[in-house]
């Protein structure tokens, strides 16, 4: 486990050495803050609109950060040949990938803490109270990033970074495609195509489960059990993706 932690630390240091990382975090913070000072939505729903827009900005920027850190993580190490001294050590490829995944999850988690810290601070200054339920959305954002990074890691072993980017983005949007729409489509296509659509929907990460924003914004209660369920779902799904990534990575001739 100490090897995994060492690799995670190496990944964190690598992420912190990127200028683009700071630019994306700074842009996210500016936009989260900017939403509060934009006066466009003074239409009676301001509080909800501001929260909605801020949470959306955080969602988009956490996804951008995850992709920024994951897409090049393995291909660059292969290209720069820095992977060889690492793999020459008594270290399995599973430990290598787990360390990378852990490092990225920690960096994204720290960035999300910054985003949500600013959001809560601004909401406190504006409304005089901390909207604690919003932290539930922070957990969902982080879990989503973990699933997306695992998905991207799996693809980075198999395809080039541009293809990886396209496939991950497609999986992200299909994952957010509401079940209601899928059921609507299923009722209007032949059973064979329906089976394909249903299997694809079942196999792809169901990120819709992690989208609790609307429910939070309308103040509907969310059971703590639901958070346990989605955490289990996201971590188990990432586990399967990580296993597949290890499987293909071990077969890769390095």
């Amino acid at each position, binding site marked *: 486990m100490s090897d995994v932690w060492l690799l995670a630390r190496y990944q964190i240091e690598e992420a912190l050495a990127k200028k683009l990382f700071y630019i994306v975090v700074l842009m996210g913070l500016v936009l989260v803050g900017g939403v509060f000072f934009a006066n466009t939505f003074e239409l009676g729903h301001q509080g909800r*609109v501001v929260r909605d827009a801020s949470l959306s900005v955080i969602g988009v920027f956490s996804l951008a950060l995850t992709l920024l850190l994951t897409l090049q993580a393995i291909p660059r190490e292969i290209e720069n040949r820095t992977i060889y001294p690492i793999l020459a050590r*008594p270290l399995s490829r599973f430990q290598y990938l787990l360390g990378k995944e852990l490092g990225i999850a920690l960096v994204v988690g720290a960035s999300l803490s910054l985003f949500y810290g600013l959001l809560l601070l601004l909401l406190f200054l504006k409304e005089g109270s901390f909207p604690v339920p919003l932290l539930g959305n922070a957990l969902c954002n982080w879990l989503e990033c973990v699933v997306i990074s695992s998905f991207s890691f799996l693809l980075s072993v198999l395809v*080039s970074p541009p293809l990886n*980017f396209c496939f991950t983005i497609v999986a992200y949007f299909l994952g957010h495609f509401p079940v209601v729409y899928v059921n609507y489509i299923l009722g209007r296509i032949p059973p064979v195509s329906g089976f394909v659509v249903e299997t694809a929907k079942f196999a792809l990460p169901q990120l*819709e489960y992690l989208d609790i924003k609307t*429910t939070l914004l309308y103040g509907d209660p969310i059971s703590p059990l639901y958070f346990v*369920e989605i955490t*289990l779902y996201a971590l188990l799904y990432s586990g399967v993706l990580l*296993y597949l990534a290890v499987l293909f990575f071990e077969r890769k001739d390095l």
Partner: protein
Amino acid sequence: MREKGGRLSGRHVALLAGLVFLFLFSQGQKHVTYLYGGAEREVKFLSLMINIDKQPCALPGEDRRLFLRIAILVLVNLLLWRRLIARDRRGIKGP
């Protein structure tokens, strides 16, 4: 789209990001009408960004499908990882 052995150049990233943004913008723009002070005001925004006009709804995962998915994933993880961890303990470090 490849350059220097599959590495993404800044231009490619910008192009891809632009295409994704254009796609989202063309797909997701919608009109949201608010009643404020007796007058209607309309706001156009990306549907992915603003969903103020959505009705409150039950969480998508609050059905049996989530339980089913978790159960299947527990089984799949147990089956897959048992083999890999056992092999890792035996000291086989890749091919």
